């Protein structure tokens, strides 16, 4: 059996009609060519309105206000996409924070999208208008199927007032510290060379200065006091030293003339071979002469002892001269050594 071409064509058409399901004109796919690329959020309806509901109207910089985008007249409330304000340049003046929206049902008359907007400066005067395209299925195919609306068509403009944040009052407290810490050292010594630290040269110089100064003093002293030099030679003699000390102590004894005479006699016995029996002035003179003592020294010795005897038994006030004469005699005899 051979089928005719027209029969085959009718069969194909019939198959197409039967196999392709029927579509609701309202859910028919929109032609993509005229669909707006921006500000289209999948809303559908014959006349959709959008408005902002702002709370509060007065806010500080960087503080949040609640902005609710209310969409009314949509026939597909559950399919509308929440606009992402962060991608819109008009909302750069705000810091946008998304807030969970209330649940939506297909029977809702209006859709609410909630945002937290924090103005970044005081020059922000309103929440910017939002362009809102929607799909009108009753419109003839083409561009007119995607009309737009704006939030600022409402008489109630979402004007806001942004205030400067009040200055945070800093808690002022005084600096607690002892009073002496607030005083500092001033003057040239602050930048001085620091404390003087003697080096090795200073120590060596000091070590050498001691003996040098002492030696220099000794030489000067010898030059200034020659008799004293002789006296110093005398003092090298122990006997002479003892006699001299005894003579000088004589004033403190009860009988100074006797002490002077005793001191000189002791010296003579220690320095010269005086016999123990020589106690009178004459005997002493004779003993000294035998020891080859010069006559004048011998006579001075005899005169001294006689003067001591006179002073002991007949005081005449000349006792003070006895000590000097005794010392001079000792010095004279010591010089003979």
């Amino acid at each position, binding site marked *: 059996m051979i089928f005719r071409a027209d029969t085959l064509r009718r069969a194909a058409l019939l198959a197409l009609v039967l196999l392709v399901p029927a579509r609701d004109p309202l859910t028919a796919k929109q032609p993509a060519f005229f669909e707006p690329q921006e500000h289209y959020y999948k809303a559908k309806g014959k006349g959709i309105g959008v408005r902002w509901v702002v709370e509060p109207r007065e806010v500080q910089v960087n503080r949040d206000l609640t902005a609710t985008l209310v969409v009314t007249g949509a026939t597909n409330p559950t399919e509308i996409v929440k606009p992402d304000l962060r991608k819109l340049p008009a909302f750069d003046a705000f810091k946008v924070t998304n807030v969970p929206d209330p649940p939506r049902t297909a029977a809702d008359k209006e859709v609410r999208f909630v945002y937290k907007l924090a103005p970044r400066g005081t020059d922000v005067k309103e929440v910017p208008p939002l362009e809102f395209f929607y799909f009108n299925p009753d419109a003839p195919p083409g561009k007119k199927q995607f009309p737009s609306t704006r939030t600022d068509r409402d008489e109630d403009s979402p004007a806001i007032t942004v205030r400067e944040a009040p200055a945070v009052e*800093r808690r*002022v407290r005084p*600096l607690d510290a002892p009073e002496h810490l607030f005083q500092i050292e001033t003057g040239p010594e*602050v930048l001085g060379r620091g*404390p003087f630290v003697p080096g090795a040269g200073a120590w060596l110089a000091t070590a050498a200065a001691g003996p040098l100064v002492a030696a220099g003093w000794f030489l000067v002293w010898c030059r200034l006091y020659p008799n*004293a030099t002789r006296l110093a030679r005398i003092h090298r003699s122990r006997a002479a030293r003892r006699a001299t000390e005894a003579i000088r102590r004589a004033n403190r004894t009860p009988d100074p003339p006797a002490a002077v005479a005793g001191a000189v006699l002791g010296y003579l016995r220690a320095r010269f071979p005086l016999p123990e029996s020589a106690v009178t002035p004459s005997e002493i003179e004779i003993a000294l002469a035998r020891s080859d003592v010069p006559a004048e020294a011998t006579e001075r010795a005899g005169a001294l002892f006689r003067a001591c005897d006179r002073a002991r038994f007949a005081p005449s006030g000349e006792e003070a001269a006895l000590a000097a004469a005794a010392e001079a005699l000792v010095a004279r005899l010591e010089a003979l050594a």
Partner: protein
Amino acid sequence: MSHLPTSTGRGKSTLWCLVVLLTLLLPASIALAASPEEALAAAERSFAEGAELRADAERAQAAFARAATAYDELWAQGCRTPELALNRSRAHRLAGSLPRAVAALHDGLAVARFSRPLQVELDDARSRVLYPLEGELTAQGKSVRARTVSARMSAADAWLVCGLLWLLACGGAARFVATRRAVWLGCAIVCLCGLGALGVLWARDARERERAESLPLLVVSEDALLRKGNAAEYPARIEPALPKGAEVRELTRRGGWVQVQLPGGAIGWLPGPAVVPCGSVEPYRAQ
């Protein structure tokens, strides 16, 4: 024969260019660097500003911190005097840094160990370190003032005293030679004994200082727990934590930690950032 430029000729011209360049640049560089007098004046201005703002601690401490930084720079430049050390310490302390104040005082005492104002200031600063009232930490951690001859007498004073004693001894000996009187010999012997005693004290002090100060001195800059090892996982050697301002001696460093010895002899580890070395002149930055 053509005359070719010799290498020595080129070298000479290069050398002259360098000399001219240096001559032009050197005065400029010298002019840019602040003189010590200017730096001191700036430090004193900042200090005075801080003193005027003492009713507002925050602003005053900022001014004192600037003064402390300026004083630190002067110290780093080589101006090492007890007066500068004292100013530096007070600026740090008023800026809120007790550890750096203690370190500055030790720097000053290293220069002038005998300085009484520095010693008194250090005692006062140590009294502000928050040790517990009693316990092992207090027994181990508290430093005591050195009471040695070098802490009471400067090297110059010792030199003068020694010189005087030596002079008197030599003079006494010379007088004894001249007069043969025992009293002068006794005087010379007494002076020599005094000289010897002073020498013994100084020698002993020098030996003790060499032993005690052979280890670098550190000051704890923040409360830190002394641990048994060089990691935070190790248990504490002593509790509670060492207060800031405590003085310790550095033994060794490893892995960002410092092994230290307390004045009482206890040894442990502290984190490296928790200590400030004496002699450090890193610029102080107010917190």
